[in-house]
């Protein structure tokens, strides 16, 4: 079982895909070491466009570049992709519907010691609110590779978040990523845990733990936040007493909100494991997850408290 971080997985995916797809380039804002696009830069320097620490110009310039038919990946940290340059993402990319792929590392509390300025807890909410954007939050190395390839084969503005900590494989070997399709990773009854990104492996571990307590929880990986897999979520809602969402993101506007919207007409309670509308602090990712309520134990405790 591999335990690769999602950002390393993305950097290696770019290199692997570069041979098969000669028609893409990578835009960077002097953070190649952080986003892991340095692998690609080293192997394909002619397809790597250094923009300096100037994310706004990078975003609009990538939009212009995309008219050549060559697909630009715009890569930087999520705080800067989703906030500093978001108006460029809206007006230069989304409104004209250009084929620009934004891939950001440094998301959620998983950023760890760099602290609040670099911990993007709002990126899913922000990109989800912009028309024409597809929003992807993959869970493991396999899904990152497949999602990156699907992005190359699909027209349109797309945002994908990666991650910093190593995560174990959670998808099966025969998994096929499709935009807009969630997947049941562990079957169960009574309770459905819906998770995204690095929270998926915590959800699976929590479900395994709960089994010992006689609670049989289903685990669903939602890797496309927008468009979300409404049929799957509605089906889960109709077969569950309650649902739990898990995300390394603020409680507003991300997975919890998306799931609530998707099953608004199904009378089943949904409880969130998410950051409770606060800024966190520096610390190791696991310690932050525990302090701010998004650890494996938080998932377990929440489900136990609601299941009686």
């Amino acid at each position, binding site marked *: 079982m591999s335990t690769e971080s999602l950002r390393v997985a993305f950097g290696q995916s770019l290199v692997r895909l570069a041979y098969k797809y000669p028609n893409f380039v990578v835009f960077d804002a002097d953070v190649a070491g952080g986003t892991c696009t340095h692998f690609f830069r080293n192997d394909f320097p002619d397809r790597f466009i250094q*923009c300096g620490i100037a994310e706004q110009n990078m975003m609009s310039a990538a939009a212009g570049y995309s008219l*050549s038919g060559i697909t630009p990946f715009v890569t930087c940290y999520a705080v800067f992709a989703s906030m500093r340059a978001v108006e460029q993402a809206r007006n*230069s990319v989304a409104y004209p519907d250009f084929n620009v792929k934004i891939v950001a590392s440094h998301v959620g509390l998983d950023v760890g010691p760099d602290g609040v300025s670099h911990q993007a807890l709002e990126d899913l909410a922000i990109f989800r609110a912009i028309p024409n954007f597809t929003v992807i939050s993959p869970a493991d190395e396999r899904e990152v590779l497949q999602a990156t390839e699907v992005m190359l084969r699909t027209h349109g503005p797309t945002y994908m978040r990666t991650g910093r900590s190593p995560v174990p494989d959670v998808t099966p070997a025969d998994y096929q990523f499709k935009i807009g399709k969630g997947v049941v990773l562990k079957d169960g009854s009574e309770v459905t845990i819906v998770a995204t990104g690095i929270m998926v492996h915590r959800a699976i571990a929590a479900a395994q733990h709960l089994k010992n307590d006689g609670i049989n929880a289903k685990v669903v990986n939602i890797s496309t936040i927008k468009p979300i897999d409404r049929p799957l979520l509605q089906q889960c809602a109709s077969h569950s007493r309650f649902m739990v969402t898990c995300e390394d993101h603020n409680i507003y506007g991300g997975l919890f909100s998306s799931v609530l919207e998707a099953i608004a007409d199904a009378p089943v309670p949904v409880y969130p494991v998410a950051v409770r509308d606060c800024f966190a602090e520096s610390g190791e990712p696991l310690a932050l997850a525990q302090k701010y309520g998004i650890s494996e134990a938080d998932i377990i405790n929440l489900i136990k408290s609601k299941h009686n």
Partner: protein
Amino acid sequence: MARDKTAAINRIMNHDTLTLLRTKAKIIRKDVMQMLHYAGSGHPGGSLSAADIVAALYFHEMRLNPKSPNWPQRDFFVLSKGHSCPVVYAALAESGFFSKDWYNGLRHINGALQGHPDRKKTPGIEFNSGSLSQGFSFGLGRALAYKHTKDTNRVYILMGCGEQDEGQVWEGAMFGAHYKLNNVLAIVDYNQLQSDDTNDHIMMLKPLAEKWRSFGWNVFEIDGHNMEQILGAFADARGIRLKPSVIIASTIKGKGVSFMENVPKWHGSLAPTADELKLAMAELDNDQ
């Protein structure tokens, strides 16, 4: 290069060319007045100040194909000062990209001519500008791709002077110089007025040419209403090898309509009434 330049100068010296372009600029100004009157709102001042530059671009300088707006060999024009789109709509219609019947839909629901440009709705429009400075970066990105694909298309980007306040302009200025984008010609419509007041009262802009020079650009300073100077700078920019070029074109906001000239309120959003339209048309007709 010398031969190119001589040929260019010969073209410039052609009296018929200058007469044609002055006539086109007058038609553009009249069309701007007409369509803004239909619209009931919009930005007359910055459209009129740019009319001579736009006429020179569309009717002399750029390779375009009105019958095929996405012709791959076309030169690439970005109106980064998107609020001045009436002047570009007029040039596009006069070039034959679409009918002048479209003018009366400007800024109205279901119209093809949006209040700020929309490339999906209007043939010949390359970018959805309106948010200042994004068009500049967009054009630079397009120019870099032309370099990478070894295409010889040139990129023309028209910016406002108020737009120079945006930090992204200077991010782009560094980017353009870093990548030696000599296929880019940026033009600043330097009418010295922005939304509320003069540039220098809002945010000191001088010395503008020195700013661009220090960012590594080749700078031309011209009178943006003098057709010979406009064409001369266009021709000279083609000979620049390792730098992008910018023309700082001194202009008069509202140029050609006396009651609009240098009057801040005609920045927008404001349109001429029926009486004002009549007066403006008469002045433009009489202007030789």
